């Protein structure tokens, strides 16, 4: 049996292919939009995975350290290490700031980590891990720094010794890892002018600068310039202990807030990126509706374009079902081409986005089903028009 649809496509295959290509690009945009959303969620998960922690211990009554500011004393980790069920605990600081390299500055999240502890970057794509306890940095690829670059964070210059990938904050800023002590200093030590002003202010306070107590002023000044807090303590739970239980015990006894991995993911996904993801979700819905409408109109106009040929077919006694299946097959063919082109296009331009775009295979499957469904629905409009045509139109006007 001759395939009517195939023959028709072969008859005007360039037109068909170009239509499919255009449709494909539109579907590609839709896929990318879904990918942007998936990427945001995945960034949040990767952020948590890479910290390698089971528990996040933060200031009481805060949702820190990512969603809210949190500060805890940096010696609290010693108490945590003695707590039953805790195998490792490491201080960590997070500070979003501009990092300078030469003339250019990059917005980055500076992470202070303890080498060897949780919070350290889990894998590198170039360079080496930090070996000095000061003034070395590991930067994310998206920051644009290379191994050997000298970057400036507040008062000190750091050498980039390693490069990581996909280490970004929930806002998409690349992470720059530096040793904890340097990070504490960067976070809490003010600039020189502020320090000098503060010293003068203290020196002018007669209660603090007493002639009878020569060492007092120096001691007060020293205590003003030290920062002894961190943003969170990352904890690895010993095997055989439930993170939930340990977190509950910590909350109960240690005057801190402790979040498990699941709670942290909830905070990041449901609270931090909720608005942004809803924004994208709305856009995605509209894009899907628009794509469906365009597919419907394309197929409808294609059918109207060959209405005379359909009338001839009817005239020679072709079954209605044959005509309907021809239009349906064409619609589905268009959908397949559109899906394939869209998937390829999205994969090609995805990596060019500044933030990570994750194209999930399962999303592609759902997308394919949706495209097919939309094509079937769209073709009903065209089929209706085709079946209503009067065979006499073939020989008339």
């Amino acid at each position: 049996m001759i395939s009517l649809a195939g023959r028709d496509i072969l008859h005007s295959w360039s037109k068909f292919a170009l239509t499919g290509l255009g449709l494909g690009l539109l579907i590609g945009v839709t896929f990318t939009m879904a990918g942007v959303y998936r990427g945001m969620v995945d960034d949040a998960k990767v952020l948590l995975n890479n910290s390698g922690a089971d528990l996040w211990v933060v200031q009481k009554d805060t949702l820190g350290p990512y969603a809210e500011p949190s500060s805890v004393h940096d010696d609290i980790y010693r108490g945590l290490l003695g707590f039953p069920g805790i195998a490792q605990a490491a201080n960590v600081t997070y500070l979003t700031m501009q990092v300078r390299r030469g003339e250019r500055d990059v917005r980055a999240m500076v992470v202070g980590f303890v080498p060897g502890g949780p919070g350290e970057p889990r894998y590198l794509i170039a360079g080496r891990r930090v070996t000095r306890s000061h003034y070395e940095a590991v930067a994310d690829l998206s920051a644009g720094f290379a191994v050997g670059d000298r970057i400036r964070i507040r008062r000190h210059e750091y050498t980039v010794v390693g490069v990581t990938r996909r280490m970004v904050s929930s806002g998409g800023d690349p992470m720059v890892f530096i040793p904890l002590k340097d990070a504490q200093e960067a976070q809490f030590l003010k600039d020189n002018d502020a320090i000098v002003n503060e010293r003068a202010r203290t020196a002018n306070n007669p209660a603090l600068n007493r002639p009878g107590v020569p060492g007092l002023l120096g001691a007060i000044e020293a205590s003003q310039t030290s920062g002894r807090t961190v943003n969170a303590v990352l904890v690895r739970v010993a095997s055989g202990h439930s993170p939930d239980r340990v977190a509950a015990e910590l909350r109960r006894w240690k005057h801190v807030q402790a979040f498990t991995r699941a709670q942290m993911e909830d905070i990041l996904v449901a609270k931090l990126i909720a608005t942004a993801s809803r924004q994208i979700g709305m856009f995605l819905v509209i894009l899907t509706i628009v794509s469906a409408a365009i597919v419907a109109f394309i197929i409808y106009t294609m059918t109207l374009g060959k209405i005379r040929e359909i009338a001839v077919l009817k005239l020679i006694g072709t079954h209605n079902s044959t005509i309907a299946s021809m239009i349906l097959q064409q619609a589905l063919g268009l959908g397949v081409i559109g899906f394939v082109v869209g998937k390829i296009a999205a994969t090609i331009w995805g990596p060019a986005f500044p933030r990570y775009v994750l194209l999930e295979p399962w999303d592609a499957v759902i997308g394919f089903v949706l495209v097919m469904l939309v094509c079937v629905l769209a073709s009903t409009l065209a089929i209706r028009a085709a079946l209503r045509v009067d065979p006499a139109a073939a020989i008339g006007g």
Partner: protein
Amino acid sequence: MTWGFRVPRQVWVAVVGVGLLSALAWVATQSGPLAPIPVTVTPVVRADVAPALFGIGTVEARRAYVIGPTAAGRVRRVLVDVGDSVTAGQLLAEMEPVDLDARVTATAAAAERGRSAVAAADAQVRDAGSRHAWAATEARRTDALGAAGVVSQSAVDAARQAEQSAAAQLIAAEAAVAAARRDLARLEADIGGAQQQRSNLRLVAPVDGLVTARDVEPGSTVVAGQAVLRLEDPRSVWISVRLDQARSAGLGAGLTARITRRADPLTEVAGTVVRVEPISDAITEERIAKVAFDRPPDGVSSGEMAEVTLALPVVGDAVVVPNASLRHRGLQQGVWRYADGQLGFVPVTTGAEGLDGTVQILEGLQVGDLVVVYSERDLDDRSRVTVVPAIRGVAP
């Protein structure tokens, strides 16, 4: 375009269709979560590991002197300024003596008077002596005359009494001289005391050194022990280095150091660990070591920041991997070993680590094993990998 034959349209469609499908297949398998993870591998080799410790410290003088008065008072004059070199014994500053000068004069005058008193007493001794001599002569003569019966017994007795009285007066005069001399000695000691008090107000340099601070100006009142000037021995500068306790294994006196001063970052100078402080900083979790310059650089100043790298003994012929290949799985440290296209996590025990990122492997790996160094994503047991020379986006 004209070929000798006509390609049927079906062929074109088939070619385009197959092309699209193969592109889709490539896209689905080579990107996204299903794609193999690009990794780089390196063989485990034998090499020397040069471990080193790294710390930052501040330059300070081993011997610093605080020059101030021992009693509260007002500063009269300050003779030197910051940066001046001074020699031992040099007068640096002086406190206001208030009435001390007058007291020195008063005690000197009192001593003079004491000396006069001694002279007067001496004269009285001589006077009493001569009176006694005359009385004795008179007594002897009266005795002789009495024996001859020329004078009455009463006259003889009177002469004897006069002689005894003169002897007693002589003893009294001599005692008065001794008292006057002791008084004089006391007054002279008073002068010494007043002069010593006076000289205590002179602040002199205890050693040769450099004036590093001039804390008060003339006219200021200072309490006992408060610094007026500070001195340093510039030849005694060293660096107080703070090293992270977690990375301080092997720290000890005698290690050679490479010192880079923040003020002169391009020059590296040599030094030696002189002492490791017996007390560590419990708050900052750092150990403190004193590193002396082999030759103190010119223009080095106290309080300057310096980066110090301490070389530890080289571990020769060790089994090494790059530290970028070390991964953590849960609480376990290990590496991903690559063999026949398959990955396996091997727990390892590490030894010395060089500043260049080479790590000694004590246990877990053999020379010649291939280990994953860099990977585009985190790896797990089910990861499919493809070996590449360098990860995309990074210069090889």
